[in-house]
Structure formats: structure tokens, C-alpha cells
């Protein structure tokens, strides 16, 4: 299943619900374009909901890192929500788990933005 994304606004926070596979090619390109588009439109507080992400490879991890630095370099914040075990394990192995602000409750995640 290729990656899909839906964007919604909650209390000024842009929540992006991602599903499917974030892998080299379609998934990683879609994520990159979507984050760049949001930043271009002035969105600086982004919450990526990964609850329905079934698979991620090193390219997908790279895109998460790139999204994080892109938003941060614009003075914004990007957080992750609802990691599946597969994504959680990948972030642990690559030592990125502590780099990202990871939440498992949407309301708490929204409230955590400055």
C-alpha cells in the first residue's frame, strides 16, 4: 500500500494523518512535498500522525529527519504522534527516537506545541 496523507487543523496545529508505506520513491517524495508545501504556506506547527504507517525504510527515516530540520530551520516545531512498533523500532535503532518529540495522545501532543 503506497503512502496517503490527510491534513487537518486543530487549535492552530496542522495534523497530518499518514498511512501506508514511507519508502524510497512515491512515499518519501510525497512526504517531502507535503511538508515543504505546508512550510511554504506558513504552517510552522506540524504534527505527523504515523499511527497507520505500516512500514518505513531508511529513505523514509531520512525524510522524517529532513521534515524535522526543514520545519525547525523555519523556526517551527514538528512532532510525531502514534508510532507503530515498526516505526518506533526503526527510530530506536537509528538513535533518532530522542531527537524527535514523540507523543501517543493527540490532545496532549497539540497542547505541547509552544
Amino acid at each position, binding site marked *: 500500500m503506497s503512502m496517503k496523507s490527510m491534513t487537518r487543523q486543530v487549535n492552530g496545529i496542522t495534523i497530518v494523518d499518514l498511512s501506508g508505506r514511507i*519508502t*524510497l520513491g512515491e512515499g518519501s517524495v510525497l512526504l517531502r512535498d507535503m511538508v515543504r508545501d505546508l512550510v511554504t504556506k506558513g504552517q510552522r506547527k506540524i504534527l505527523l500522525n504515523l499511527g497507520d504507517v505500516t512500514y518505513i*525504510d*531508511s529513505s523514509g527515516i*531520512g525524510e522524517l529527519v529532513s521534515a524535522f530540520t526543514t520545519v525547525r530551520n523555519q523556526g517551527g516545531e514538528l512532532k510525531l504522534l502514534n508510532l507503530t512498533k*515498526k516505526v518506533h523500532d526503526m527510530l530506536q*535503532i*537509528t538513535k533518532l527516537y530522542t531527537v524527535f518529540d514523540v507523543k501517543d495522545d493527540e490532545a496532549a501532543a497539540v497542547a505541547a506545541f509552544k
Partner: protein
Amino acid sequence: MTAKRVSYTLDSSLQSVNTAEETAQLLAAKAGFDEDNCLRISMAVREAAVNAVLHGNAYDPNKKMTVAFENTGRALVITITDEGRGLDVSKVPDPTTPENLLKQSGRGIFLMRSFMDEVRIRLLAPGTEITMVKNVSGPAEHHKEASK
């Protein structure tokens, strides 16, 4: 158990990466690995295949990737070969050090090593050969057996 070996020659495309990953998943399950290890094996194969197709062959339609699976009975041995410029593994930095942590790429070989029991990288002329081993009973059991 008698060793069984199958080999595929594939185009340098993303479709080939997916084919290699799916084949690894199937053959790992057939070799008796549990669900978690099947996933680790298929992820390692995906990373090696991406390396071959993207960094090795650079999507060149004239260059092929070869993926071979051998079930020795004690281990699944997977060899992925490309026809690219060759990968100098000594120049691949550790992606987990603070200065590399936020780099977008460079995690493929690290992940292969994390998921498999053994990873060997050999320069060919031209190309690179990556051999990955997953022991059926895990590395500790395998070494115990080997030292008997």
C-alpha cells in the same frame, strides 16, 4: 537439510527493490524464521537492493542487480550484487554519531548490520557484492554450534 539456492537477475528499478523485498519475506518464512525475523530480513534486503539500484547502478537500464538466496539449513544467506562504481565501506560514516544523526541519508548499511547476523561487503570490478547471513537459531546458538 540440503542447501537450496535461487538467484534472480533484475533491472535497476524501484520495482526490483520491491520484488527483492517481497521474495526475501517469502523465503525467510519458508526457511522457518518467525514474523519479526522475516521482517528484519526483508528490510535488510530492501536496504541492500536500494543500495544496488540507486547508489550502485544509478538506475542505469543497462546494469543489472543480482539477488541470490541460499538456505543452508542453518542460515539464510543472501547475496546482492550490482554493476556500479563500487562501494568503499570505509568511507561510510556511522549514522548514529551526533554529527551524522540529522543527515538525510547513510543509514542503509547500518540497518543491514542491525537486522542481520553477518554482513560482508566486497568490491568487484566493477560493482559491489553484499552478503548477508541470518542464522536460523540466532548468532549465539550458531557460534556455540560452530565451536563444538
